[in-house]
């Protein structure tokens, strides 16, 4: 008797896994609807741009000059007039209760002091609860009043018949994301996050399903090799991951105007290597889970630190040195860099070979460990 046909066996495993996955509404929601919805929500809801900071205006001078300064300060949209207060104390109270995040206090005689060329101080009160917002609001106010102060100085020099001093002017040119929008930066990272959810969690749950149902026994009495069993079980989730990636890129470029400057081939290689890792993690989690619920929790425990240490939400360079070293074994980090590189920078293989090599290495190591555990379990 010849051995059983591997082709038939892998096909049976594959088709069974697809059939069960498609008919499991929970899983289908997680692999299709959830990524789309979450991409849209993340893309629209998460915004690192800081503008429209609600700002109280305390105009104690009530002169034409003070009103003009208030108008010009708020003109660029970084600060948004939330109301007017009669004193710094009143403005502070509004900040305390959350009605405002900043206050600009223009003192009495501001206008006349400026006309008489006397020094004047404008107070800016900031809510430091959100340091980023406070920093940007304070910088906007400082920038405006700094520019006004320089203007006044030049006027005085001209009036005195003196030469204006030379100045150094910086001319910023923003590459890759000229409008400094958050979505082009965030969407590639969100794609990395969602692929972890879809492939790691769903794979772990799918593989634990047979153990939970008690049907694993009926698999183990068959002559199928562990490798064919794994191949048949992981292939559907690999295809789902690739499909989801295509959909995410589509949503990203169509809805959020994320550019697509680089090679889709390099992106595809990155996706495949990344999925190698995430599927491996899912397989590994399934080998230590007796139920789908355990698999879900295991996946979640992996996912959270992986995302936090990926540089998607916060820059890796801001982390302590020892933590930065750990991020090198995080496939989410490298994949996010590959996707940003391909989509935003137009990077090619020569630019991303290091990340791709690390993804390949991590994928091989994780999958190798997972396969070894899987084989001992079913041997």
């Amino acid at each position, binding site marked *: 008797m010849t051995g059983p046909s591997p082709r038939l066996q892998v096909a*049976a495993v594959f*088709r069974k896994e697809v059939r069960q996955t498609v008919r499991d509404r929970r899983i289908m929601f997680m692999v299709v609807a959830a990524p789309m919805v979450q991409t849209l929500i993340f893309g629209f809801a998460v915004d690192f741009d800081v503008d429209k900071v609600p700002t109280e205006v305390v105009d104690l001078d009530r002169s034409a000059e003070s009103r003009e300064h208030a108008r010009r300060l708020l003109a660029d949209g970084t600060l948004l007039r939330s109301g007017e207060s009669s004193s710094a104390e009143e403005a502070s109270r509004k900040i305390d209760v959350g009605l405002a995040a900043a206050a600009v206090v223009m003192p009495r005689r501001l206008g006349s002091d400026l006309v008489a060329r006397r020094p004047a101080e404008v107070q800016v009160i900031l809510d430091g609860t959100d340091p980023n917002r406070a920093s940007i609001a304070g910088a906007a106010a400082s920038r405006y009043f700094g520019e006004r102060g320089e203007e006044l100085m030049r006027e005085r020099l001209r009036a005195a018949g003196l030469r204006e001093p030379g100045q150094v002017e910086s001319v910023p040119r923003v590459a890759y994301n000229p409008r400094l929008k958050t979505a082009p930066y965030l969407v590639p990272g969100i794609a990395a996050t969602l692929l972890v959810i879809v492939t790691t969690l769903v794979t772990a749950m799918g593989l634990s399903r047979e153990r939970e149902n008690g049907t694993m026994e009926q698999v183990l009495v068959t002559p199928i090799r562990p490798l064919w069993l794994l191949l048949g079980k992981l292939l559907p989730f690999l295809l789902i991951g690739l499909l989801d990636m295509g959909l995410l890129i589509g949503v990203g470029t169509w809805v959020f105007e994320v550019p697509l400057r680089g090679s889709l081939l390099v992106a595809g290689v990155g996706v495949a290597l990344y999925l190698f890792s995430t599927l491996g993690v899912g397989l590994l989690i399934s080998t230590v889970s007796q139920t789908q619920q355990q698999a879900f929790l295991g996946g979640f425990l992996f996912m959270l630190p992986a995302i936090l240490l990926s540089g998607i939400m916060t820059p890796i360079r801001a982390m302590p040195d020892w933590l930065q070293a750990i991020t090198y074994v995080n496939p989410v980090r490298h994949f996010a860099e590959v996707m940003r590189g391909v989509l935003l920078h137009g990077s090619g293989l020569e630019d991303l070979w290091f990340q791709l090599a690390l993804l390949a290495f991590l994928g091989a190591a994780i999958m190798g460990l997972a396969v070894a555990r899987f084989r001992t379990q079913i041997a």
Partner: protein
Amino acid sequence: MTAPEPALPSAEVPGAPVVEVRGLVKRFGDLTAVAGVDLEIRRGEIFALLGPNGAGKTTLISVVAGLLRATAGEVRVLGRDVVRDYRHTRRSVGLVPQELNFDPFLTVEEALRFQAGYFGVRLGEERLVEILTALDLIAKRHTNSRALSGGMKRRLLIGKALVHEPKVLFLDEPTAGVDVELRRSLWAYVRELRSRGTTIVLTTHYLDEAEELADRVGVIDGGRIVVVEEKEALLRRYGGRTFRLALEAPIAELPPALAALGARLEPGGAELSIETSGSALLGPALRAAEEAGLTVRDAETRRTTLEDVFVRLVSGREPA
């Protein structure tokens, strides 16, 4: 000069056993579930493996079927080692597990087709219909497994074990929890499988089932084989008849005269039983009871059953 023909695996030789177990030991940590078992299953027989709970029946079957690895010893199916040649041995073995389980998202037909695929077999329409018809599942072909009754699920498990036409079929408590009608229909199907050449190994707690179906019986207790013998020979060896005397009032101790005849006081003290190869002891037993002052309310004689033999063997009252 031509090269000699390679030796056939031992079970290909006519009359060779299909399953050979030598010195099998299986331990789970400190627990020894199987403590050195030697066993042969002959081609085409129905072999009933009996034993109390925890005796090692399921463990033994699991090792042969490939679910567990032996701690020591050797197991062969059709002459091939079940570990080294697992791709061949598992192709020849079918297992119907004790516990009911099912794939909740598959229909009956899908479950059978996919199971066949795992064995590397394409399940043709004719074979599929044959299995469904034999197991009375033809009307449930397209029904989701979740919607099946317990009896239907058990029949589906049998179907899944047969899709690849195994040469040896292990049935682990196949009729546990099923109704009488299904039980009898499964018995008939087992006989039919045997008539087609399938070797059947059956574990059961229903001793009437073993007595009904088995050609040979093996008793395992504490991980060791107590006896393996032809069913009829076993029944003959342990006596042909059992007398039961129902007493008017229960007694605490067996009177010496009755003990000398080999009588046994049943739990509760209201019934005596004596096993004998003939009917000669009935009269002396009645007289001894009367002389001991016991009032016999009822007397019954019946043929010794496998259950009687089993109880005697595992209770230690009789050496094998």
